[in-house]
């Protein structure tokens, strides 16, 4: 699949969540969207996912227009959406179940994922019995089990404490590795965006792209070590400037 997501969107008159955002996302790249809350990052992701339709413009994926949820896309939200009445293994199996994969095959596939995200021994635990980090791992496994080409992550680690967040960021980079999957990662944390992404797109307060920068930091990366490099600081300073310039350019509007 040639995963070229082209997003062109113009919001309604009353509330402009996103204003004429247009960009190409290359196959296999890790793109981070960063911006203040309310800038329309999550809206953008929902549109790419096909969960909501744009009021104008269109999203295409490999040449065809996106109309509703489609296979090959994994979506991870900030909030855990594991089904409370299913244990970890059965939760991870859910996407396969929906695709009609045979029971034996989906169990063995789910077990592989359990292993991959380090949840062995917790297969029979219910979501309520999991810590925040374990629930994240289970969600990640559920997203990956159907082997999606495009991963959409909406502030996936923002509810975790700092230490766990770093751990999960490294985990994500490890899993993404050379998988060839495309990742679209939304965050309000500039450091996180730079540490993870091949490319950081800064969205301004009115849902417009204020900066689109390639991050030429070597891979594989360690999200802690990378934060100490001078290149990292230079990029951060540039992007931070872009963010604040946008903030003060516009008069504050009541939302």
């Amino acid at each position, binding site marked *: 699949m040639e995963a070229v997501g082209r997003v062109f969107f113009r919001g309604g008159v009353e509330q402009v969540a996103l204003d004429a955002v247009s960009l190409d996302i290359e196959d296999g790249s890790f793109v981070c969207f960063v911006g203040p809350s309310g800038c329309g990052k999550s809206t953008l992701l929902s549109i790419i996912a096909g969960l909501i339709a744009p009021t104008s413009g269109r999203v295409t994926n490999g040449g065809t227009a996106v109309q509703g*949820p489609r*296979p090959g896309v994994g*979506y991870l*939200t900030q909030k855990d959406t594991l089904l*409370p009445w*299913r244990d970890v293994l059965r939760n991870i199996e859910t996407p396969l179940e*929906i695709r009609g994969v045979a029971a034996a095959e989906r169990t063995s596939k789910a077990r592989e994922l359990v292993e991959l995200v380090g949840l062995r021994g917790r297969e029979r635990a*219910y979501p309520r*019995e999991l810590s925040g980090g374990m629930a994240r791992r289970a969600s990640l496994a559920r997203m990956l089990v159907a082997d999606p080409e495009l991963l959409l992550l909406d502030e996936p680690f923002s509810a975790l404490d700092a230490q766990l967040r770093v751990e999960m960021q490294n985990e994500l980079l490890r899993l993404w590795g050379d998988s060839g999957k495309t990742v679209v990662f939304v965050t309000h944390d500039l450091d996180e965006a730079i540490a993870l992404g091949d490319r950081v797109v800064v969205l301004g307060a009115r849902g417009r792209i204020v900066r689109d920068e390639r991050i030429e930091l070597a891979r594989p990366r360690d999200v802690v070590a990378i934060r100490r490099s001078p290149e990292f600081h230079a990029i951060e300073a540039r992007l931070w400037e872009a963010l604040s310039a946008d903030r003060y350019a516009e008069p504050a509007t009541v939302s």
Partner: protein
Amino acid sequence: MNAKRTPRIFAWRLGLFLAIVAVWQALSALHGMAFYISSPSAIWLREGQWLADGTLLFHTSITVEETLGGFVLGAVAGVVAGFVIGPQRELGEVVDPFIIAVYSIPKVALAPLFIVWFGVGIWMKIILATVTVFFIVFFNTVAGVRNVDPDLINAVWLMGASSRDVLLKVIVPHALSAALTGVRISIPYALIGAVVGELIASNRGIGYLISSAASQFDTAGVFAALIVLTILATILNALVNFVDRRTSVWKVDANLSLRPN
């Protein structure tokens, strides 16, 4: 901490119980008081006498039968009605005020009507318990059907689910777990329904035992029957806690916006 605390709490409880019994016994020895409050020793004797002549077993089994019958009928009807009415918003909006109106009637007030319809036998008590249980289970089930977390539905949608998948994998399990909460809460209410029915018109059951003893100014009998009732209620509550512990791991906290209380 807890291991040390539990025996101490238990010892205090036992102490308090013995103190109450002792004070009760002492007070009953005062002139004329035994008529009003009987005495622990007299109640104990009555309990033994009822146990020996089969009175206790007979009346308790009647009450248990009515409670269980009402509980099962009410729970089944509540779950079924909840699943029928819950998903249909418009039908729900039409019938909601009527259901709330019937729910608001104190169930005791329905007893005379049920006597006309079902006679003074066991069925009138079962129906009274059924009605009590029904509303609790019904409101929980409807809330369970209606208040499914939209994020869960979206998550399943994004996996490419059909409407049928959403229904079977999200809405039904959520509603069932909410219904189970209702079922759990309603167990003691089934007992209330049955005993109220017996108090109003009956010649058997623990409620009857209480009212017949009272009409003969047999205070010891009243207390003896009340103690049996307390034990029965305690057993039912223990059952509730047991069900609760078995299911709380995956149970959902349904937002009971519909349940007037």
